[in-house]
């Protein structure tokens, strides 16, 4: 098997890029017990995030991208559970710690921070912005009230909230959606985490705000030297900002490479389909948008073969007989989980 992530050859390729690995997720499996059966929301996911890089995690709703990140933070609750895998963060497997134990709590917010999709409901309506920010600074950085408040005001200023000194005592409902998301970003970065996970950060916002927010996040993570994981269903969001992309489908990673390579040279049928269905400004008029046939898979009782098979137009004989293909390197740093050679066509 050519260099798969984790193999020696893989590391040799990357060593000379002088990047150090921050997070390594190995074969993560997270499942949910439902009335109808066991749902493997995340089915053996392996990926890594290096220091100070921006990585995009792309896939449609239900593909497991959000669940995988919640698993990293151990924020999964019954009926969900993390069934297998390792989450190596700064050399330590986080999964061996109890979900609410002191070790995990020291990581959450302080080392790895997460911001969520719905800015309208992600902030506590009965506490002021200031209270919600200073509690983190107090908890993780042990700042006293004065220092915490000053730092909070400073952070709010950095994310572009005008009149931060006064607005810090306002309640969330006094802010617009875009503003609230900025507050969330400020809160996320307030304790200087090594990594920020943004779960669909712009999905609930309008287009202009989206662009502003993404630009802000990029600036902030550069300033704070934080890695950023952007989880989204929208390729366009990561096109501009992410350095690498992981494409997920039905709980697994099906393709990964640098952003440029993915857009120039998509190999997995799903990725190809995704790109084909986006309207682009730089193409000829009249090209038809080609949607991907079929429906997303039912994650209960999945067959052992490739999950994309029912919708795939590149299928070969091998796909129906063998189990889900493992990630294979098709070109340096570009890994695809597919039996067909999609470049032949």
């Amino acid at each position, binding site marked *: 098997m050519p260099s798969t992530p984790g193999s020696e050859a893989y590391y040799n390729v990357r060593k000379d890029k002088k990047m150090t690995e921050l997070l390594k997720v190995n074969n993560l499996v997270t499942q949910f017990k439902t009335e109808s059966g066991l749902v493997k929301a995340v089915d053996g996911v392996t990926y890594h995030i290096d220091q100070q890089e921006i990585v995009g995690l792309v896939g449609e709703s239900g593909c497991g991208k959000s669940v995988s990140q919640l698993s990293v933070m151990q924020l999964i609750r019954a009926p969900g559970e993390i069934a297998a895998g390792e989450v190596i963060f700064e050399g330590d497997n986080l999964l061996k710690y109890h979900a609410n134990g002191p070790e*995990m709590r020291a990581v959450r917010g302080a080392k790895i921070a997460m911001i969520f999709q719905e800015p309208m409901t992600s902030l506590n309506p009965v506490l002021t912005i200031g209270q919600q920010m200073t509690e983190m600074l107090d908890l993780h950085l042990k700042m006293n009230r004065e220092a915490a408040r000053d730092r909070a005001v400073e952070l709010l200023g950095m994310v572009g909230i005008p009149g931060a000194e006064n607005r810090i005592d306002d309640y969330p409902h006094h802010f617009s959606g875009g503003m609230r998301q900025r507050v969330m970003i400020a809160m996320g970065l307030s304790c200087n985490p090594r990594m920020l996970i943004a779960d669909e950060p712009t999905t609930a916002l309008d287009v202009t705000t989206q662009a502003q927010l993404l630009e802000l996040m990029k600036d902030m993570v550069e300033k704070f030297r934080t890695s950023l994981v952007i989880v989204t269903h929208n390729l366009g969001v990561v096109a501009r900002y992410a350095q690498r992309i992981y494409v997920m489908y039905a709980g697994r990673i099906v393709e990964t490479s640098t952003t440029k390579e993915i857009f120039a040279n998509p190999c997995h049928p799903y990725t190809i389909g995704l790109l084909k269905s986006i309207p682009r400004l730089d193409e000829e008029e009249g090209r038809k948008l080609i949607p991907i046939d079929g429906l997303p898979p039912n994650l209960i009782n999945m067959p052992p073969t490739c999950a994309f098979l029912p919708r795939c137009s590149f299928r070969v004989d091998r796909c129906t007989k063998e189990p889900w293909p493992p990630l294979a390197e098709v070109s340096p740093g570009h890994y695809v989980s597919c039996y067909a050679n999609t470049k032949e066509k």
Partner: protein
Amino acid sequence: MTAYIIRRLLLAIVIIIIVTLIIFFVIRLLPGDPLIIYLGQQATQGSISMEELETLRIEYGLDKPIMIQYFNWMSDLFHGDLGQSIYYHENVGVLLWDRFPITLHLGIVSLIFSNIVGITLGVLAAIRRGTWVDIVVTILAYIGVTIPVFWLGILLIYTFGLRLGLLPIAGYTSPLEDFWLSTRQIVMPVLCLSIGGLATAARMMRSSMLETVSQDYIRTAWAKGLRERAVIFKHAMKNSLIPMITLIGIGVGLIFGGSVLIETVFAIPGVGRLMVTSLFAQDYVVIQSGTLVISMIIILVNLVVDISYGWLDPRIRYG
């Protein structure tokens, strides 16, 4: 916030007016000559002559059209005149004044007890959902709502009064006179009065907590690395407790309803018992005025509760 207060105030006034109308006209529903009823025993015994009756009729203002009578009654009320009891031959105001502190004493103690215990149980049941704690609390809540309060009283009297001899089985003493005896006397009545409110409080708090805990901002709180205590008490409870203020309004209603039964069972000379004895004595003046005072209290308490709710929720308070 001011708009909110004014709206609530106006609503309360409208309700008060409707209530007075209902009370007044319901009593008028009585068949027969109101004057005869008013005079009660005396009139039926025929000891008053027809002329005297007519004089009295004019004196009581019963010869005027019904709406005028209503307004007369209302203006009397405004001047603090609640009427003369047919049975006790005393000013109703005095009667109520004697009895209200007793009912209030029991009522307030019950309210505090039922709400504190109920809310605590509700929180416990919510954060330990599905465990035995939750099951026990849920069963208790069902029992509290379905148990006949008077029967509970009798059970308690039997167990703690007659069999074990721990507590006095009837009567009431003011805590200012004899604190220890007073406290021992009110243990059982308060327990009976509280059970309904306790069950309601536990149920409401439990569902409020469960709803809060499933909100996005709680997930954010966990993601910030806060410990369970902080998430529950600082973030979740503050949100869940706000609707609980309505428990006070509900509680007051339960107290007055329950006091009718409890005061009868435990022979406590409060307002509830007064209403019952007046009913059998056909003392409509007391019933009319007593009901009025009770409903006024309930309406006012609910008004205060409503306004407090607005004040507590920053979304309403700060607009």
